[in-house]
């Protein structure tokens, strides 16, 4: 017998990120917890970036999806700590990113942050042709969470999800 909480968590787990719709909020690591308190479903999410404009959409999508699935009352809570890390993107999520032509993040840096005056070095492979020869165009891409790269061999530009 599937519990109410498991059913609610399964529904919440299907909601996708509005900016990277190949990922569910669960794959992105933004969906932290789903609880059922009486007749209220309480969903906890953590923003990827402080100014992430997709937060409002995520909240609304969660409320609508759960309401449509028969949960009359849904509360979405923000969890600020610990801060979201790209390390929380699941293996399944990373595979989905690559399948969609994006480059998945490497491990996030930990500990004290030093100034880096030369371009960030990342061992990336082109999501299109698999070449390891890539160059960064900009550390700030189409959204706050992406950097823009170019493949030196096939010349195609691609998005890389940044390590934070």
């Amino acid at each position, binding site marked *: 017998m599937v519990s109410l909480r498991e059913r609610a968590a399964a529904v919440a787990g299907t909601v996708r990120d509005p900016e990277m719709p190949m990922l569910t909020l669960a794959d992105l690591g933004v969906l932290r917890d789903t609880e059922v308190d009486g007749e209220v479903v309480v969903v906890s999410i953590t923003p990827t970036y402080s100014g992430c404009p997709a937060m409002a959409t995520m909240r*609304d999508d969660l409320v609508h999806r759960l309401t449509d699935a028969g949960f009359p009352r849904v509360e979405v809570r923000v969890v600020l700590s610990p801060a979201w890390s790209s390390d929380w993107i699941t293996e399944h999520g990373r595979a989905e990113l690559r399948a969609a032509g994006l480059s998945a993040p490497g491990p996030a840096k930990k500990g004290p942050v030093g*100034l880096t005056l030369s371009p960030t070095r990342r061992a990336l492979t082109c999501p299109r042709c698999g070449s390891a020869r890539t160059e960064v165009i900009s550390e700030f891409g189409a*959204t706050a969470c992406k950097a823009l790269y170019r493949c030196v061999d096939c010349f195609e530009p691609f998005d890389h999800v940044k390590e934070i």
Partner: protein
Amino acid sequence: MNHDSVYDGLLGGDSSQWAFGTDFEDPLAGVDTTVPAGVDGGELAAYCLMLGDDTLVLSQRLAEWCSRAPELEEDIALANMALDLLGQARLLLARAAAADPAVVPVLPAGSPVPAEDALAFFREAGQFRNVRLAEVVNGDFAHVVVRLLLFSIARLAVLQRLSGSGDAVLAAVAAKGVKELTYHRDWAGRWFLTLAQGTEESRKRLVSALEQLWPLRDELVTAHPVELSLAAAGVGVDPAGVRDETDAVLDQVLAVAEVDRPQRAPLAGIGGRTGRDGMHTEALSRMLAEMQVVARAHPSGRW
């Protein structure tokens, strides 16, 4: 389908696909905003306004660059950094309002404007607590590079310490901000080098921007009594305590760029009062006039 309006086709009769206008989104929904024991709510609010106004005002200045940067990539970079800072401002202003609701301007009864928006759009220049570096009018590309470098070096050092704050909300906002400011500082540092080592013209402009903004730097590492009081309570950070660290990082950039540290004295306050006391340059009121005009015309507006 009605082809008179492009939006009709998008809507498809189901307004639930629209995220906005359905409900107000509280950026601190579900977050415990209890003021820590032994801390004065009014002081905590004032402190949050100082940090939040810095990022709000600087964010607005960066947003003014939108569509004006020399390259599309840098346009997007500036917009992304503006968005990070705006996000931090939103959380900090919301935290200020939760710590002391008395700081929030009073709007007409029934106004749907949330507290952090009321703080952003319905305060006068004299009620803003940002450092003056954040508010001065934009110049050329070298100017924004130098402004961001000076700001992000100091702010990153403060946020690293603030992530251990006794106030859980401030600690969380700071820990998040560290990750973001690291990217901002690297961006500014790399462009500083690029311009310094570029052409004669780019170097000239860089040095000129540094000379121009240098007197405003001191305010970033000078403590206000509220900062000292909260630092003593384990909730805030004394910015004077990060002076050596910010000097060291800046010297690292200046050395590689082979640019001399300017000798200009700090910009004096008026009667000892500076941005942290609400004493600003003329630039802030002009900037706010544009930023606030629509919100003020519709204090009960729904967006």
